[in-house]
């Protein structure tokens, strides 16, 4: 590896003090930490639970009593604390690095103050089965959040029940199905149209709900092919489910025409607003004529991603779809808030109870702290950041931004290292992994995998110009290495807890193990 650029000569007196490198050199901890379940020692206790004052034997129903003790590890509090602190040193999480490399995920800063609200006993000690007269405060928060999301999207009502973005997309297709069933058109309308660079959850949810899926591809200019849409719509069209901007960061400026074409054929239009971070306060789903939309509160509205959940989604609908919203809805009669469960045309429940309340509180707090002007500023900075970063990235040898070349992007870009890969044999994934030696990374969320050697960056509004400069400089350095010293890139990471992760076991349902039980069965053969 060559010396960093600013490592100039130093005098002999100062030679003991190494100069700071041009780029940060990151070294992860390695604790060889076993799994929690492997750490338990029989007889150890974290908390000495006092014996009940009265025998519980008769007061618990038979069906609720355990026949044997749960298989939990027996550990002291200190051992538990140490275990998780060690694990925390072995990762490269969102609060540790310039986390712009998880494009489509909108990894923005989750303000820590919002967690104070969530941890307040007035939220943390609520129970979903409490009488609604005792939870007026949280119902008020939900009611206000619904009103704000309705304003942001232009929709009439919003359900906060979905547990994530894909759950909200599923909620939308479930409402589409219920709507056509109520009109006696469901048998006839069995097709859903989407685009190849819309989030694949749209196609997946439509399939799950029993529809056939028609996919449109980009035209020669890189935009969704409107002529293909005209050829695809007809009496069988139930809906258009489309992301805009698409996961390439390209905004389809003819989106209102798309909606008109589908409406003329009698179909509904659902707007996947997972990529809304660049359009908050600038345009609304309603402005393009959509009948419904969804937001990811864990992306656009700052709530944490929480390692795959729980997240929060929100489904917004126009007046004619309101009867089909999940139940219950939160209503206000002028004095009291209440839950309306008497909704005969509702699609029912998308998840238990009312939604992921802590995330609703965080999103509410975030929106309230910014106000309408602040939301628009979020979008403007996110777009500026993205296009600033794109300019810097495209100066690096071997990278391109396929589709609609030369055009700006909204809030993310799906780049391609195809040229670098052809020149050097180094793959995109290896570049992202090598970046970990410099204290950042990008990962490979680029479904569907149709752009060669993809890299999707989404800088959001959270990162400063210095952050973006550092990130671009790291990629430039790794690209230089790929051309001059590809072995260093290929054998990366060099300073991480685990050297190289083999994908095969993670990709194969027969070997992946995401629980202790699955690990014992599949890996240990127990």
């Amino acid at each position, binding site marked *: 590896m060559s010396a960093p650029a600013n490592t100039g000569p130093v005098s002999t007196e100062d030679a003991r003090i190494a100069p700071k490198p041009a780029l940060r050199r990151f070294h992860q901890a390695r604790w060889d930490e076993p799994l929690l379940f492997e750490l338990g020692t029989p007889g150890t206790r974290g908390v000495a639970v006092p014996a009940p004052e009265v025998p519980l034997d008769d007061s618990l129903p038979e069906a609720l009593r355990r026949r044997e003790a749960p298989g939990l590890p027996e550990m002291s509090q200190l051992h538990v604390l140490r275990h998780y602190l060690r694990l925390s040193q072995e990762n490269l999480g969102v609060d540790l690095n310039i986390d712009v490399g998880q494009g489509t995920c909108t990894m923005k800063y989750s303000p820590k103050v919002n967690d104070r609200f969530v941890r307040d006993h007035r939220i943390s000690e609520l129970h979903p089965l409490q009488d609604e007269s005792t939870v007026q405060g949280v119902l008020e928060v939900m009611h206000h959040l619904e009103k704000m999301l309705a304003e942001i999207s232009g929709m009439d009502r919003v359900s906060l029940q979905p547990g994530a973005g894909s759950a909200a997309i599923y909620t939308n297709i479930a409402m589409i199905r219920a709507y056509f069933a109520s009109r006696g058109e469901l048998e006839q309308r069995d097709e859903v149209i989407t685009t*190849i660079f819309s989030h694949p959850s749209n*196609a997946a949810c439509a*399939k799950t709900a029993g*529809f*056939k*899926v*028609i*996919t*449109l*591809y*980009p*035209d*020669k*200019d*890189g935009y969704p*092919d409107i*002529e*293909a*849409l*005209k*050829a*695809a719509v007809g009496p069988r069209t139930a809906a258009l489910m489309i992301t805009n901007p698409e996961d390439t960061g390209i905004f389809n400026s003819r989106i209102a025409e798309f909606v008109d074409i589908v409406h003329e054929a009698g179909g509904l239009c659902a707007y996947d607003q997972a990529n809304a971070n660049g359009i908050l306060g600038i345009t609304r789903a309603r402005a393009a004529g959509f009948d419904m939309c969804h937001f990811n509160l864990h992306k656009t509205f700052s709530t944490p991603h929480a390692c795959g959940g729980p997240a929060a989604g929100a489904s917004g609908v126009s007046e004619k779809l309101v009867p089909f919203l999940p139940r219950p809805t939160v209503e206000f009669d002028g004095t009291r808030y209440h839950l309306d469960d008497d909704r005969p045309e509702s699609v029912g429940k998308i998840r238990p109870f009312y939604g992921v309340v802590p995330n609703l509180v965080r999103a509410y707090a975030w929106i309230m702290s910014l106000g309408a002007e602040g939301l628009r500023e979020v979008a403007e900075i996110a777009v500026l950041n993205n296009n600033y970063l794109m300019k810097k990235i495209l100066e690096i040898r071997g990278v391109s931004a*396929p589709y609609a070349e030369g055009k700006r992007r909204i809030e993310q870009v799906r780049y391609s290292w195809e040229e670098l*890969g*052809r*020149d*050097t*044999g180094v*793959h*995109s*994934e*290896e570049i992202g992994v090598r970046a970990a030696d410099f204290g950042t990374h990008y990962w*490979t969320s*680029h479904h*569907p*995998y*149709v*752009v*060669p*050697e*993809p890299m999707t960056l989404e800088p959001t509004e959270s990162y400063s110009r210095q952050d973006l400069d550092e990130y671009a400089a790291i990629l430039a350095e790794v690209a230089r290495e790929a051309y001059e010293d*590809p*072995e260093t890139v290929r054998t990366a990471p060099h300073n991480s807890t685990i050297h190289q992760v083999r*994908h*095969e076991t993670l*990709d194969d349902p027969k070997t992946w193990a995401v629980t202790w039980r699955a690990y014992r069965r599949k890996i240990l053969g127990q």
Partner: protein
Amino acid sequence: MVNPVAGLGGRVGLKGSDGPDVQARARELGAVPRASERASAALAELAARVGAPVVLTAAGPMGEDAARAAGLEPDVRYTPDGSATTAADTVAAARALAPDVDLLLFAGGDGTARDVLDAVGSSVPVLGVPTGVKMHSAVFGVGPRAAGEVAARVATTRAFTEAEVMDLDEDAVRSGRVSARLYGHLLVPDAPVRVQQRKVGSSAADPYAVGGIAAELAGRVGGGRLVLGPGGTTRAIAAALGVDVPVMGVNVLRGGRFVAADVNAAELARIVEADPAGTWIAVTPIGGQGFLLGRGNQQIAPEVLRAVGPDRLLAVATEAKLAALGGRPLLLDTGDPDLDRALAGYRTVITGRGRTARYPVQGA
């Protein structure tokens, strides 16, 4: 094995290097051979990954020079007669090397790939180092070093797949007409295991996508006859339907069984004539150009297409294959311009179970 003259015509705008006349003309125009240098880069990559590979090769510019330039000590097994090597030398060298190697690494273009196909068929796995002008075949690494990397994987992973050998008619191209043919299939190392490669690249390598297409086709065709055009995707579909079809050619299936294998145009016309309304035709775009009809599947003649009708002509492709066209339309060249026009427009392409695309199709 290096075809020393591969790629000669490229930089001087001759659209190819097939035949001694074109090669002489290329040299007159100042062409410099690059094949050996690129082969050497691939070998260096291979050596860097597997230590000291045993290299069998042909003498001088046919491989020996490239191996030595990569710091390897090759075992020369074939020596050409004259100084100017020919296609016959390529064939002879390939035959001399094939019996004793784990992988036949050849540097050349589509013409060389055809010679290798003629020489060894699928008796040994091969991989192309791209040095030619035309590389429509799916048997090449994406670059010299990438070829070296894929070759190195053979040391540990013996997984192979069949890939198409295509070639353009160079004279036709020089006169302004693009015409490609499917010549057959070679056995090449399966795509690398890294995520991006598996998802992009060859459609036939994705069993989930192909299985979905097969299920959708089976549902549509029911008890009818299915005329299946050639191609990696359609061959994998046939396998998913339980039929092992020949490497090349047009096959007719019904209910998971052969009705007829590798039919010519006349045979196909006779079979279809019996019940055109109970016949479906499934074709997949072949090669990088997006030809749906008229390249590699000319057996499916205009009369047959007319008899079966446009509604039962089914295009099939994985999403990755369609996306790789970058918005370019699928092409038709049935030999009947009226039919091409009738079949053109936005057509349904089956991409999975319950999943289709609407994709532009036009006459070539």
